[in-house]
């Protein structure tokens, strides 16, 4: 038997003992609880209906939406005293066609009153290059570019009579993290201090967000589908990201 095995044998119980001790330090269940994030998809106030409803962009052009999905990641909650809690491994893919994906449950949040929420619209820089992932980041979800590593942060596909693409298609795959075409954007919302997000052991508060798909096409630059109907990263994706950074998400209300 090798010396290293003796060392390992001696070391393992020590490691085990330390980890036991550490277990004792972990915040017990009664100091942590959960809450939910609910995303209601709309198009300028009308509820989003895939494939059927016709909407108008800021240029007055008609369009329909067939696919609408996006990543929300690195969710951070802050208290009035400035302390914050970053929800570990918080990567979620929200998909209009999968209703369960529009209600996220976040567990193990330290109890307290939170007055601010922030998250990344998309996926942070590091995870775009971090190798084979699982869960929401699994490339099986069709949100990973195989030829130019990185995630599609926001995917909207549809049609518009004004689109010059084949079959009048609209293809908006927004992503890319390298300058000058970095499309990582963040969302943050202050929460009314009179009704903060109250994480308690005896309640499961719900944060209700309105998500406006039309925000991709207005806000900073009004998009005409005659000129822009296809983007997969690059300058036009930045243009769209700058649009939705202003209006994709709105915190509507909290049920405590």
């Amino acid at each position, binding site marked *: 038997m090798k010396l290293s095995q003796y060392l390992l*044998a001696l070391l393992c119980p020590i490691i085990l003992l330390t980890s036991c001790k550490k277990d004792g330090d972990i915040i017990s269940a009664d100091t942590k609880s959960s809450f939910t994030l609910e995303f209601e998809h709309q198009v300028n106030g009308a509820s989003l209906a895939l494939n059927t409803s016709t909407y108008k962009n800021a240029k007055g052009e008609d369009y329909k939406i067939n696919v609408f999905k996006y990543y929300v990641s690195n969710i951070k909650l802050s208290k009035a005293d400035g302390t914050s809690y970053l929800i570990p491994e918080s990567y979620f893919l929200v998909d209009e066609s999968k209703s369960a994906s529009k209600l996220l449950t976040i567990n193990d949040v330290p109890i307290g009153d939170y007055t601010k929420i922030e998250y990344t619209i998309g996926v942070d820089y590091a995870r775009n290059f971090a190798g*084979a992932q699982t869960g929401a980041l*699994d490339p*099986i979800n069709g949100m990973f570019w195989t030829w130019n590593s990185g995630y599609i942060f926001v995917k909207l596909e549809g049609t518009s009579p004004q689109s010059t693409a084949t079959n009048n298609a609209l293809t908006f795959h927004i992503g890319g993290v390298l300058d000058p075409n970095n499309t990582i954007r963040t969302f943050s919302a202050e929460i009314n201090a009179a009704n903060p997000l109250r994480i308690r052991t005896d309640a499961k508060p719900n944060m209700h967000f309105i998500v406006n798909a039309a925000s991709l096409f207005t806000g900073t630059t009004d998009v005409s589908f005659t000129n822009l109907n296809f983007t997969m990263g690059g300058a036009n994706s930045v243009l769209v990201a700058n649009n939705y950074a202003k209006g994709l998400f709105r915190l509507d209300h909290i049920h405590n």
Partner: protein
Amino acid sequence: MLFLSIALMYACSKNEDEITPDEENVTFAIPSNFPKPAYSFENNKLTNAGFALGKKLFYEARLSADKSVSCGSCHQQFAAFANLDHSVSHGVDNCQGKRNAPPLFNLAWQQAFFWDGGVKNLETSPLNALTDVCEMKTDIETVVKFLKNTAPYPEMFKRAFGSSEINSQTVLKSITQFMGVLVSGNSKYDKVMRKESGISFTSDEQLGYNLFKEKCASCHAEPFFSDFSYRSNGLDLVSTDEGRSHISGVQSDFGKFRVPSLRNIEYTGPYMHDGRFYNLDEVLEHYNSGVKASENLDSSLRNGISLSSSERTQIKAFLKTLTDNEFIKNKLYSES
């Protein structure tokens, strides 16, 4: 604690007993003249079972849309895992791609993959070939489903990852174990550099090495014979392939491609991103007299690289010392 220690020692020795005497452990060996690798296997523990699975997947043609093409179809061991005699590779339905299949070795030291550096992690590099309509034309969902329903894969995944559940992550990690272990560092050049006993360059090889350091090494930097940068070497006045700018979106990257390694160059032809040159003489003649004033031509090539006939002979003699026959003939990497 004593009991625990004994139990642990037992566990350790038991693992060792499971290895049959004639089975050697697959290792990721770093040649002493190589720096620290970029990919460390830290989050993808290298095991015999993981490597064996990765190798089987690498040579598995049934993963492609028409079950005709495997990774190994275009990355052939006798060509240092490049595609012999193919300027560009043939994918499913006899589709011809637009770029030359690069050789596969020393990938653990590379930070970006493919001619344009579009893929940034070795683990996700197989996705490109699996999904490209001109390569294997499938998707990872189909691949996972096939593997779940095809013996002996569930059993092999269980041995490799402790669970017969198959997902894209374990598929990619196992292929990465195979690809990452492909280390080529036993060429004559390496042995001379490591001062291994009795091995030295011939006078032509030595003169070629001196010339190489003077005229080529600013891009083809030792020990990988690439600095992994993206450059235009003036193949065309206007490149038909946008190259690096397809990834970066920057016009100053138009027509640039990653500087390829010259290791095993003797066997990795045809050469260039589109495989336009079939032998090293054509390549050297390009640098001597064929460099065109392309938009983003590398500044070091403005006047080409003048090479006399004897200089070319010497450089070629040196380049052949970069052939690693142990790598090319290593049965560990072979299909069967």
